[in-house]
């Protein structure tokens, strides 16, 4: 996935520079683990030339987006604030624009050698019709990668972001769901709205950990996504996300990129039918959580046990 078949200028330079810059990078370029190995902790220590170059590129991307994105978004927002007779039709158009925008962003990140991920590699990997996609969440760009890859996708947006005046027209226009703000019974609203979106033909993306995964770990899963799939009687599609080395996680910020070019991979597992679990969301969650935990914390290894987890 994201195999980098095309020659990309800055990516090409960095791929050749980075291994020379550090011994760790040199080892990583020559060896590949044959067996399932636990995820290594994030790199520590001083910055080398590769990291400084990537930091500069990340800063450039950040400045360019900060300078130009507000203008584009302002026009977009005016359109979203206009009344509409068909909110779902407009939501699909908004989601389409967002999907293309995130696709372009990932193309740019790839071109600049900041993050290796090709969203085109996921075309045809998801089933037709509505489904719930659940994934681990090691880095921020994994959500934009899914947005770039799955059409008609609604997501759960953190309550504080959902309420922000400047973002609200977009999240409401795209018919995203508002995440909980701590009330114990808010799960009811989320489940109800999630089922409603699926019944309207949308797909739903949820990160059952509720927040980004700490490096080398996966937080305990929450049940809402599984309950929604069971109640709506739609397939659940687990996706194993890996980012090696990790970047834009809770611990590794945007402006501290690793020396090696991070590679983001999304491994789409077979869709699961909640009927096979008697529509028991707890059993469905337990199964997915244990498989994602094993698969996400290994570097794409292929032991018989892990192959079984992929089915």
């Amino acid at each position, binding site marked *: 996935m994201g195999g980098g078949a095309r020659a990309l200028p800055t990516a090409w330079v960095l791929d050749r520079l980075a291994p020379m810059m550090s011994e760790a990078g040199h080892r990583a370029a020559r060896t590949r683990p044959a067996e399932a190995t636990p995820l290594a902790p994030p790199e520590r220590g001083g910055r080398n030339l590769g990291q400084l170059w990537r930091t500069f590129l990340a800063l450039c991307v950040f400045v360019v987006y900060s300078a130009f994105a507000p203008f584009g978004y302002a026009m977009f927002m005016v359109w979203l604030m206009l009344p509409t007779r068909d909110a779902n039709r407009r939501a699909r158009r908004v989601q389409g624009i967002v999907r293309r925008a995130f696709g372009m962003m990932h193309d740019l990140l790839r071109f600049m050698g900041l993050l290796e991920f090709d969203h085109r590699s996921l075309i045809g990997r998801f089933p037709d019709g509505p489904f719930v996609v659940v994934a681990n969440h090691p880095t921020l760009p994994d959500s934009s990668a899914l947005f770039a890859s799955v059409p008609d996708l609604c997501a759960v947006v953190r309550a504080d972001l959902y309420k922000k005046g400047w973002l609200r027209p977009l999240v409401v226009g795209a018919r995203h769901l508002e995440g909980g703000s701590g009330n*114990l*019974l808010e799960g*009811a609203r989320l489940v109800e709205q999630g089922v409603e979106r699926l019944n309207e033909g949308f797909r739903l993306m949820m990160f059952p950990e509720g927040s980004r995964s700490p490096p080398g770990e996966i937080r305990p899963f*929450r*049940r809402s996504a599984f309950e929604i799939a069971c109640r709506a009687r739609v397939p659940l599609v687990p996706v194993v996300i890996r980012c090696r080395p990790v970047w834009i996680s809770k611990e590794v910020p945007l402006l501290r990129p690793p020396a090696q070019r991070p590679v983001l991979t999304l491994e789409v597992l077979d869709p699961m039918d909640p009927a096979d679990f008697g529509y028991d969301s707890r059993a469905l969650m337990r199964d997915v959580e244990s498989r994602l935990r094993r698969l996400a914390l290994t570097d794409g290894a292929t032991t018989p046990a892990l192959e079984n987890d992929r089915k």
Partner: protein
Amino acid sequence: MDDTLEMEIKQLIVDSLMLEDVKPEDINSDDPLFVEGLGLDSIDALELAMAIHKKFGVRTSADDENNRENFHSVTSLAAFVRAGQAKNAAAAESAGDSA
């Protein structure tokens, strides 16, 4: 009286949430029900709220700020049910008076 209501709530928790390895007498009235203690989650809270409404006629809304407090333990749930039933009885009485 209080012990009976608490026992009914414990039985309701076990039955409505289909807890396989838990008996009503295993649940300590003051232990937290969610995350720690019994380890219930927000979907369990939703199911429990529906079961309480069905059995005791006491309803709560999803945006009630006191939900976390009311659903903290069996003891707090029993207090919530008693208060809700008293409120319902008073409302029925005033409706009877005005009729």
